[in-house]
């Protein structure tokens, strides 16, 4: 039997000024199950709360209605007050008679009063049917998973680890370092990329709290904030890293060379390899697509069709530690984590989509990243800038901005943000390499918004003497040894042709292939370009709509190095904040399934935005839905979708809402 107490607040004159409080109190007294109704100048004040507590005790109240300001304002306050009086804090209902009554109907005292009375009526109708609710506590596994071993992931991993928590850093390639490792220098400071990156890579490798898993991918993610269960697929390296010392004999002797991914096809690498000299871990993997012995085994498996390929196995013969493990297969590792940081970064836009620029057919039309490799002392040319076609030293170099950016026709409307600056960098560095080089830079707009960026751009103009020409080239073609660029000098309003020895396309950023599939596994959203979507672009930039999963760096959108590092640290801070608690309190306003009513249509699973509903088979072999209350956020979508009305939402049950409607006519 419910015993309801109604407390009407004057809120100074904010409420009482607009309505006849006494009439509201009188009306409230007559409402069903209402034992007592009283008014108070400031219910939220300590004396006000005291009087509520007193009334609860005096009248043995087990339900409370407070008619005052919006529940969005003081619901927490009054819940505490009610709890202090020994009641379950969820046995409280608030009638919003300030924001939604007195303040908007001040012009009509009678109507305001009538409305206030009905609002109280609604609240009473609902509170009567409140059940006590109990927040649940879920433990937090204080281990973090960082996906992506680029500069962002490295930063996040180090920060979390330094805060004293275990971290697993996952990388799909054989080494960490990401795109930054491929860069020669960084703008606008021109400091050597490797010099600032590789120490951090080593720190990761040596950190007691960090476990590095390279050459591996996410297979499946289950669970919820504080309690993720992740299946990781470790690709087969065919090399036993527990034995391997990384002495390098194998990759020096391996006879089968193929184009190096790290050098973007400008150089070759053996089939047992580390991507670059400072790779971490500095232990090789075998490229099963090219390795001769693997090919041989395949030939045997195919029934020895055609010519017998060489058996090779040189690496195995010369390996001093016997680390070559031909029988090594991919294996699945299952780990538990409390939080996940996604830092999968970007890949360079593939300029082969630009048929008008040769569609990748011209060897002397290269991407900015390829130029980085050509300029790099440890690159395929030992830092000598030469034309891929004939090894000549280019004297005239043309740069084309916005390739794969700001181009709707190529399905890439966004600005990649870094190209303007790295092009300026290239112009400056080419001049440093060879004072006789003349750079032409074709741009639409030069975007130099950032610390010291404008100065850097001016440096390209003044010191490097780069000629900036406003205009997007329409065609690049070969004429003898020269590459001809057709462009309009837009500011002169004249079409011009520039004959260059080398053309560098400032290709933009796009998310890593597969970013969308990863996002689906993690149940976070991504945009049309497959950039991941943050919880709020301004106020929650590293959070996602799934608790416990954070995003950072260029997988969210084009970012330069400082931004990526900052985001890595930001995500780390969020993770550490999460780990500062031993348990998470979950809101008890969640869905609940009546197993007897459930017909197992599982529509609820389809509509649930949080994958919070799963199904199981009952003892009598019926499939029924079950709600994971730790994942459920209490939106009630499932309730609306449930045909047999088997699902209901605690605190907002269908019966309660129907009674609220009812009360308006009873």
């Amino acid at each position: 039997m419910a015993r309801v107490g109604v407390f009407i607040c004057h809120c100074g004159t904010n409420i009482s000024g607009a309505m006849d409080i006494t009439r509201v109190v009188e009306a409230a007294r007559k409402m069903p199950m209402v034992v007592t109704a009283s008014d108070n100048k400031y219910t939220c004040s300590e004396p006000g709360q005291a009087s509520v507590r007193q009334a609860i005790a005096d009248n043995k109240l087990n339900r409370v209605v407070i008619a005052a300001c919006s529940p969005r304002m003081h619901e927490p306050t009054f819940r505490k007050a009610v709890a202090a009086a020994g009641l379950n804090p969820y046995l409280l209902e608030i009638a919003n008679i300030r924001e939604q009554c007195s303040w908007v109907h001040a012009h009509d005292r009678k109507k305001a009063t009538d409305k206030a009375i009905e609002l109280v009526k609604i609240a009473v109708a609902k509170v009567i049917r409140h059940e006590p609710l109990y927040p649940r506590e879920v433990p937090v596994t204080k281990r973090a998973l960082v996906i992506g071993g680029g500069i962002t992931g490295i930063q996040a991993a180090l920060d979390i680890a330094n805060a004293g928590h275990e971290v697993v850093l996952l990388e799909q390639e054989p080494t960490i370092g990401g795109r930054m490792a491929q860069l020669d220098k960084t703008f606008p400071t021109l400091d050597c990329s490797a010099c600032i990156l590789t120490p951090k890579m080593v720190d990761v490798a040596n950190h007691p709290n960090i476990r590095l898993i390279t050459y591996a991918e996410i297979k499946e993610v289950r669970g919820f904030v504080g309690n993720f269960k992740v299946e990781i697929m470790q690709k087969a390296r065919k090399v036993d890293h527990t034995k391997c010392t990384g002495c390098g004999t194998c990759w020096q002797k391996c006879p089968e060379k193929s184009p190096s991914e790290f050098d973007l096809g400008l150089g070759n690498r053996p089939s047992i390899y580390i991507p670059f000299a400072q790779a971490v871990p500095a232990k090789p993997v075998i490229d099963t697509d090219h390795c001769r012995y693997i090919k041989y085994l395949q030939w045997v498996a195919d029934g020895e069709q055609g010519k017998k390929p060489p058996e090779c196995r040189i690496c195995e013969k010369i390996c001093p530690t016997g680390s070559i493990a031909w029988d090594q297969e991919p294996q699945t590792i299952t780990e538990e984590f409390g939080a996940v940081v996604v830092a999968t970064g970007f890949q360079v836009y593939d300029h082969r989509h630009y048929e008008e620029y040769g569609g990748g057919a011209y060897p002397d039309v290269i991407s900015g990243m390829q130029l980085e490799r050509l300029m790099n002392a440890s690159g395929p040319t030992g830092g000598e800038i030469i034309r891929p076609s004939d090894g000549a030293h280019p004297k005239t170099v043309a740069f084309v901005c916005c390739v794969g950016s700001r181009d709707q026709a190529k399905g890439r409307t966004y600005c990649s943000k870094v190209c303007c600056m790295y092009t300026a960098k290239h112009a400056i560095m080419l001049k440093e390499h060879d004072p006789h080089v003349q750079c032409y830079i074709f741009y639409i707009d030069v975007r130099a918004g950032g610390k010291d960026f404008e100065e850097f751009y001016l440096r390209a103009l003044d010191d490097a003497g780069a000629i900036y020409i406003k205009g997007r080239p329409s065609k690049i073609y070969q004429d003898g040894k020269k590459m001809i660029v057709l462009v309009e000098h837009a500011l002169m309003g004249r079409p011009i042709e520039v004959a260059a020895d080398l053309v560098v396309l400032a290709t933009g950023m796009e998310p890593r292939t597969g970013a969308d599939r990863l996002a689906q596994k993690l149940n976070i959203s991504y945009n049309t370009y497959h950039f991941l979507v943050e919880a709020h672009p301004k106020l929650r930039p590293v959070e996602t709509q799934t608790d416990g999963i954070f995003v950072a760096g260029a997988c969210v959108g084009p970012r330069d190095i400082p931004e990526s590092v900052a985001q890595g640290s930001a995500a780390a801070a969020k993770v550490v904040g999460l780990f500062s608690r031993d348990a998470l309190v979950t809101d008890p306003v969640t869905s609940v399934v009546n197993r007897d009513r459930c017909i197992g249509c599982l529509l609820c699973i389809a509509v649930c935005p949080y994958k919070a509903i799963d199904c199981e088979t009952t003892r009598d072999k019926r499939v029924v839905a079950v709600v994971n209350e730790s994942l459920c956020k209490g939106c009630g979508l499932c309730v609306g979708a449930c045909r047999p009305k088997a699902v209901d939402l605690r605190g907002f049950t269908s019966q309660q809402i129907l009674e609220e409607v009812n009360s308006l006519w009873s």
Partner: protein
Amino acid sequence: MISAVSVIKPQPDTKFRSFVEAHIGQSISQCYQCGKCTAGCPVAYTMDLTPRRVIRALQLGMENELENSSSMWICLSCLTCSARCPREIDIAGVMEALRLATAGNKPSPSQKKFRLFHELFIMSFQFSGRAYELGLGVAYNVLSGHLLNMVSIIPGMLRRGKLACLPHRGQGSDIQGIFNRVDALKRKNNEQTQSSKP
């Protein structure tokens, strides 16, 4: 207010512009003036307004410049501009629209010979049903005053029997009827809704 003679007063919404935008079904303001159209245009080098500047003129409502320009008549309709525009604007369509929009006007000096050619070309098949190259060539040369235009190849053409001395007839084709009915329908449309041409 006194303003220098040279000052352009942008009038973004002109009848001219709305005609063009209606023709291509796109908004001219999409253009961010990168000049890729001009860069790829095989004849931009000889235009008084390059394709990009034609669009700019439309954006700014500089109608005189456009009306007196011969750019749209020099345009080859090779569609390279439209094919490569990063904003997917149909620039060739804009040129066509400008031709249609100005086809009725008195041709400016720079437009004369192009307009003449098109009139003669249409005439050349209006009667026989099929284009009559020799007749067209001769008529054009005489009327345009370029008497020696292409004479170099005419003998070769004749020797190879590549120039019919008389128009070739598409028997029984009702070409004249089509022309008449097209004109009739156009007149009807104009009466109904004042055409949006400036």
